């Protein structure tokens, strides 16, 4: 349509100011949509963690501080008696006491360091999944985290010498677990509790992982642990993974709100500059408007001529912004979430569509008044305009 062509050529004629006005739309749409993508990816990835570890309650010694410090780094421990109390409190659910620590390790001639977990042979399959080989059967057998194995070229059957404590034989490689809230064996090894206790002369545990069979019981299980151990004074911290995830989500949502606010401000500023260049465009073309009207262009057609201009600016800005938001979402997601598999799913792409629609809407709204003004010029005066 010729009116669209008219708008297009006018933008091309004034490409620099059009470009500058579009820039604001690009920034606004990109930041809003990227935050939407990241937010959604976060919800999805946390949702996935929730279903895999959401049934978990972690009991760690009370450190007097925030209670969020890594377990095993304090002198406080969980005694056998406390483990028994926890076991009684959570029946029929499973309570798994865990030793945790770290040490230097030697694989062949290669020296490195990693975390070590000591878990009862029978409990290992409950907590962990094997990827290659089998679960530990003997006391000197160990399971190795996937990343630790890959980085140090560890195979099933390899031997690892742990500090000065002895040698373990690798019976299986664990499936990669990702960000966990109970134990993180990806960069370490899992040995049997007896081996750990002997090697490190340990009697007390660093944490107890409770697996709750029915998700609906999480709160009541947590409560009964609290009641059994923390009645007089707080000796343990009882954390359900859902709470930890909620804390992260809250933190994220305030960052997200902040960035979205910046995006929103950017869109408002962009809207003002679109309005500004549209007004300039109308003023510069008063005579052309008069000519168009004398040739028989209706008011609505003159209005369309200018709205097309706003629409083109909006479409171009929003499209570029949308592309940038995908790139940005991909980048931020890979940096923060360490995975990009949630970026290109429909629910993550929805914010891009919303962001783009919003950007286009801002342009159109800001184009309405200038277009209306152009349409309602008196054709006689417009024709006489110098």
């Amino acid at each position: 349509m010729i009116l669209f062509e008219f708008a297009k050529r006018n933008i091309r004629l004034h490409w620099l100011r059009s470009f500058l006005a579009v820039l604001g739309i690009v920034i606004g749409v990109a930041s809003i949509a990227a935050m939407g993508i990241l937010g959604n990816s976060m919800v999805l990835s946390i949702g996935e963690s929730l279903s895999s570890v959401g049934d978990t309650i972690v009991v760690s010694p009370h450190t007097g501080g925030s209670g969020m410090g890594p377990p095993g780094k304090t002198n406080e421990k969980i005694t056998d008696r406390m483990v028994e109390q926890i076991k009684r409190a959570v029946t029929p659910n499973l309570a798994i006491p865990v030793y945790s620590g770290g040490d230097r390790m030697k694989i062949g001639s290669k020296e490195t360091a990693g975390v070590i977990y000591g878990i009862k042979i029978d409990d290992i399959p409950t907590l962990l999944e094997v990827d290659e080989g089998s679960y530990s059967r003997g006391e000197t057998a160990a399971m190795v985290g996937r990343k630790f194995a890959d980085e140090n070229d560890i195979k099933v059957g390899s031997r690892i010498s742990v500090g000065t404590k002895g040698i373990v034989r690798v019976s299986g490689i664990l499936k990669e677990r990702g960000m966990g809230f109970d134990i993180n064996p990806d960069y370490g090894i899992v040995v049997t509790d007896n081996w750990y206790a002997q090697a490190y002369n340990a009697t007390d545990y660093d944490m107890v992982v409770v697996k709750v069979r029915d998700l609906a019981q999480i709160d009541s299980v947590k409560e009964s642990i609290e009641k059994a151990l923390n009645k007089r004074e707080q000796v343990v911290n009882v954390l359900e993974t859902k709470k930890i995830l909620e804390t992260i989500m809250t933190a994220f949502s305030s960052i997200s709100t902040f960035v979205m606010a910046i995006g929103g401000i950017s869109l408002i500023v962009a809207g003002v500059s679109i309005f500004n260049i549209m007004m300039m465009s109308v003023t510069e073309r008063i005579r052309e408007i008069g000519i168009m009207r004398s040739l028989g262009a209706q008011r609505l057609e003159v209005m369309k001529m200018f709205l097309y201009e706003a629409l083109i600016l909006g479409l171009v800005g929003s499209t570029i912004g949308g592309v940038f938001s995908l790139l940005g979402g991909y980048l931020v997601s890979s940096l923060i979430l360490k995975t990009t598999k949630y970026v290109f799913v429909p629910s993550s792409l929805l914010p891009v569509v919303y962001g783009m629609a919003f950007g286009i809407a801002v342009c159109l709204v800001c184009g309405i008044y200038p277009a209306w003004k152009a349409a309602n010029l008196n054709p006689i005066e417009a024709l006489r305009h110098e």
Partner: protein
Amino acid sequence: MSQDLAGTKPVIQFKDVTKVYSLPAGDVIALNHVTFSVEPGEFVAIMGPSGSGKSTLLNLIGCLDVPTSGDLWISGTRIGDMSDYDLTLLRRDSIGFVFQQFNLIPLFTVLENVQLPLTLKTQSSVAGDRPKDVLMSVGLEPALYTHTPSELSGGQQQRVAIARALVNDPEILLCDEPTGNLDRKTGTGIMELLAGMNRNGKTIIMVTHDPKTAEYAKRIIIIEDGRIQ
């Protein structure tokens, strides 16, 4: 509607038309009880000093304005109380404008400028051969069709403007000082072109203050102080 003058229907008929502009300093009577009519195929020159009401007359004939009182028929339609929408339709289909400053759209090529009224009428960008035929008839070579107006001489631009005015085959060709921005020789060429159009039956109303130009017209209307002399 009156059917005077040997049964032909006038294309323009003013009956006691008055146009008053309300200005802060008071009312200005631009046209004062004007009555006249123009028959199909006439070539009329409207002359008069500036401020005489020439422009007002032209705006009324061009359906850009409506009278304050009196009756005015353009192309058989009474325009006294027409909406802006209907006036615009009438302008599009029955009036072709030729201006002193040519008034071509600088962003469009010669051909696109000529296509413009046709596109507005048909709401379609497929123009067919009509724009090229009209451009040929005003004496422009096809090599110029893809040029923009700024690349053309004044005379060529006015020919494009005439082609644009004629593309919808309007009943009335309305020319406002068509040679005002041209040198004598180029102006003569344009006037010859318009005279030829008139010989082929086109009704032409032309405003001018140049007596030499007015000689091409078959009838001269002189207006002074809002009245026809």
